[in-house]
């Protein structure tokens, strides 16, 4: 129950973050168009902020998409057979954990390596550009724990 509630909270936080960040992305790129085409005074920072928001939205959105089952899969096996379903459930889970760990551990390593360089136009560390990669790994691990619980408890039942 606690795990499900934790996942519900995380999903709700991600949804709020998603719409606010997407709205900010629209405003940022809108400003860029306005500045370049109407004011004829390019705002360089808008490009960097847009890229920053884009990266956060992709990785956290991909994390959220794991819970909604939105990631692409190909059905080549007869999924109506319980054994096949259980097997693909397990392989999906293991592969998910491995990917999430790579993103969490190596993503954090990359963010730390890049932290020395700044994003010139906004004066912040590039660490913030790479941070969503390990965060995505952490979110995925949380949702994978819920998937694992559902998979094994249902099988036991």
């Amino acid at each position, binding site marked *: 129950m606690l795990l499900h509630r934790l996942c519900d909270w995380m999903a709700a936080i991600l949804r709020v973050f998603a719409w606010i960040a997407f709205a900010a992305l629209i405003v940022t790129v809108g400003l860029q*168009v306005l500045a370049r085409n109407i004011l004829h005074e390019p705002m360089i920072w808008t490009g960097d902020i847009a890229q920053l928001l884009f990266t956060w939205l*992709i990785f956290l959105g991909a994390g959220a998409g794991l819970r909604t089952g939105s990631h692409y899969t*190909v059905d080549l096996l007869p999924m109506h057979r319980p054994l096949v379903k259980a097997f693909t459930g397990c*392989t999906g889970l293991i592969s998910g954990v491995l990917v999430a760990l790579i993103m969490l551990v190596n993503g954090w390593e990359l963010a730390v390596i890049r932290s020395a360089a700044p994003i010139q136009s906004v004066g912040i560390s590039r660490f913030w*550009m790479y941070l969503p990669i390990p965060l995505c790994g952490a979110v995925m691990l949380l949702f994978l724990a819920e998937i694992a619980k559902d998979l094994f408890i249902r099988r036991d039942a």
Partner: protein
Amino acid sequence: MNPLVVLLLSFFVLIAIRVNIGFALILSSAFVILLQDLPLVSVVNQMFAGIDSFTLLAVPFFMLLGRILNAGSITTRLLEVADGAVGHIRGGLGHVNVFVSMVFASLSGSAAADTASVGSILIPAMKKAGYPAPFAVALTAASSTLGVIIPPSIILIVYGAFGNVSIGALFVGGVVPGILVGLFMMLYTYILAVRYDFPANPFPGMRKLARVLVRGAPPLMIPIIVLGGIIAGLFTPTEGAIGAVLWALFLSLFIYRDIKFRELPKLFSDAVIDFAIPMFTVAGAGIFGWLIAYLGASQIVVNFILGVTDNGYLIMILLIGFLLLVGMVLNPISATLIFLPIIQALGDTAGMNPIHMGVLSTITLSVGLVTPPYGICLLVANQIGGASLGRSMLAAAPICALTILVGLLSLLFPDIILGLPKLLVPELIPSGG
């Protein structure tokens, strides 16, 4: 074992056992990176590099545009325009289906969004009017793939961004073949309508036709904003996309008032999932594509093909066959990214113009959205239509053949693709071919 073989084999084994495509790309790449004694941090580094492109920012905006069109009354208005324009021809609803997909394609660029929105209205209507359910499903799914060919196409954006080809020229190059595929589909529908006596809707009369055209005119400004802005050199594709989103939001919030402000958070957060998943796959394909290039796959394939033939047409026909196979198991975005170095290398070997090559490979890969097992448009349409999947696949086969036919015709007659760019944006066409 050769690392390239390990890479491809492990990837296909993983997707065969139903691992997410994005995860399969990352894991098979990580495996080869470990075998090559490279640091694992290069996996995440290349994933980031895969999405670090301002041009790709157009993708979320076109995805959001699809959501806005579906949430408000814009899709219904477009259906009214299509019904007024072509509904009275024999097989009327079939023509409306193709026509509205052509128009929708020029607005959103997402084939699955088109299948869901147009299909939910037209498939039940076609079944009620006496069309066989598998045909209604197949036509809806196949015509939705026009969204991949007719600009603004997300696949063309990805191709241009990663292949270093002008997206504006690719967009303009997709117009004629896209319309041609649509017209062929309408011709096929007409032939079936005559043979099986499918009905036509009554002609609404000039006054009503004029009224629905006026009602549909504001959303039809969207392709003019996007394509017109790009051709005139006013907009980049990303800027055109944001212009289209703002115009569609303005229409839906203030003019038609069919979307409420309080609905925007859900609309936006749903759109984030819509684009985050394909972009995550793009990130995964970033590392996979980098390894394909690093391991020299392009040269190996080119040498192999040149060992078989050095005839440009035969090379291209082999490539089309390969892409049709690839499209069956991969979505067009992943397929484009993974095999881009090979597509471009073979295109260069065959003496193809890069714009010609980009549009031709996109036309070919679009077929995979209907063919099993990854025929996402057919699966979505079949879900709506409740037909037997096997019968829907059979009904879709001749319609897919029409798309392939247009691909082959544009291989033989390059001006089907290059004619319009030569006329409108000659400065964006690179030499070659």
